[in-house]
């Protein structure tokens, strides 16, 4: 009885989570400028409009650049820092980890304006490079969370065995540590990429003339006649993100399974 009640609630809650998101694809195929029921008919013209929208494509290219740079740099820095805190006994480890995690507890708007002041103080122009720097603040702690969990779960004996068998430190890293870390590195890259790709407020303050995709979308939300195209764009982003996340979960699982096989062998 209680179980059925909970199941009903769970399904209701799931609907609450999904319905708003599903309106985007629904109205993106609706043949009307107005986002209201009843639906007027099926069209793909909003998608065709996107294909012809140069400013949107420029913003998309900017976002891809920013997210790629952020993902690579954050994961690299997250990897070295995660390695340092899990492999060595460091003094002030707690303070260091706290400092690295700090941006997660500072509202994005404060990170945005503080970086704006830095660029102004250094007389640097607003640019995508500044956006990358801002996104790294949030992405480095995310990357470290993923990678520390991975480092802590792995068997140091494998590295020692490699050293005993005569490999030097660098080769041990490439042939033992790195392959074992690969699933963690990939999920860190994906998580930081998506976080950066979706981030609006820091980019809003720092991107200047070269808008990222969320900044571009923000500009479009003021114009009712542009809305269906924005919804079409949202539907595409949703589809691609879900695909990427599904891929990441498959990768993560295959990583775990491979570990189990190795341990079993």
């Amino acid at each position, binding site marked *: 009885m209680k179980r059925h009640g909970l199941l009903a609630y769970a399904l209701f809650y799931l609907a609450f989570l999904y319905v708003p998101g599903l309106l985007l694809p629904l109205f993106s195929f609706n043949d009307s400028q107005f986002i209201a029921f009843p639906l007027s008919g099926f069209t793909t013209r909003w998608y065709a409009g996107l294909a012809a929208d140069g400013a949107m494509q420029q913003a998309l290219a900017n976002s891809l650049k920013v997210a790629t740079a952020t993902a690579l740099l954050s994961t690299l820095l997250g990897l070295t820092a995660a390695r340092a805190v899990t492999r060595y006994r460091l003094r002030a480890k707690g303070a260091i980890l706290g400092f690295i995690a700090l941006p997660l507890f500072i*509202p994005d708007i404060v990170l945005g304006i503080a970086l704006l002041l830095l660029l102004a103080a250094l007389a640097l122009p607003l640019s995508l490079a500044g956006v990358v720097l801002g996104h790294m603040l949030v992405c480095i702690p995310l990357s470290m969370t993923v990678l520390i969990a991975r480092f802590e779960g792995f068997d140091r004996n494998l590295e020692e065995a490699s050293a005993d068998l005569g490999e030097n430190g660098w080769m041990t890293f490439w042939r033992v540590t790195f392959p074992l870390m690969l699933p963690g590195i990939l999920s860190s890259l994906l998580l930081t990429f998506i976080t950066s790709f979706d981030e609006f407020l820091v980019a809003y303050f720092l991107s200047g003339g070269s808008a990222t995709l969320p900044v571009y979308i923000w500009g479009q939300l003021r114009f009712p006649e542009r809305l269906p195209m924005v919804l079409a764009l949202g539907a595409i982003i949703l589809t691609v993100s879900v695909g990427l996340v599904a891929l990441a979960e498959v990768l993560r699982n295959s990583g775990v399974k491979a570990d189990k096989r190795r341990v079993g062998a």
Partner: protein
Amino acid sequence: MTGRKATGRKAQDDRTAGYALLTPTLVVLALALAAPMLLLLVYSLKSQTGITIGGDLTWTQYQAVLGRASYRTLFWRSLAISGAVTLVTLLLAYPMAYFVAFHVKRAKFLWLIALTIPFWTSYLLRVFSWKVILGFNGVINSALMRLGLVDAPLEFLLYNPFAVVLTLAHAWAAFAILPIYVSLEKIDRSLLEAATDLGDGPWRRFRRITLPLSMPGVIGAAVLIFVPTTGDYVTPELVGGPKGAMLANAIEAQFNSVGNWPMGAALALVSMTGVALVTAAFVLAARAATRAIR
């Protein structure tokens, strides 16, 4: 042999290698986090007349921020909205997390994926979809009109604190579900059996065992939701209207339309400090309450 000395030296070398590995990350954070936050502090201590920023340090901005009634209203409203968001999100998410932790047997992983997929849509568009749902010509109103249930669109749905709370409770749901789920999943099932064996009914068992043991997850989720939502800009801007405006909107205005950076900096620092103090007080109170109900 000289084993002990060598070990000491090795530990020292190891530690140096560890710090060397950390250096790039710390340098980037010093440049992109510590330096900007210091600049924010310096700016907040400056005065501005017209567009000229004065050289001397002064408390003028802080006096202005603390003295202005509209900022006090905004501060308490932001705390109230975020507090309501936190409470609503936790209350909605707890039974969901409980269901997955205790009643789903085989497909736990699938449920967790299903619960997180909506959060991979663009944050902007997730918030915007509520404007589409609640708006004057929105989904709810056009459906109600069509069904003949109302004659004119309902205007009270959008542009108020209620719309902000609803939208944020939706946007931050995953941040409540996952920590609560993890803390429920960790609970030793034999404790529950012991409580039943000793005669506790389901409700008493929940109140005495499950709830106290899941409180760390609940408190963690509360902080994870409360702190960032006090600084949310997009949601109040899109669905809040004048009555639902929050701190971030005022900070943004000082930096963009008003153009008084020192004032914006002071407002940001006062807000952050206030939120941090309230959060710390909440965590201490919540921990004490957890001990009390046990």
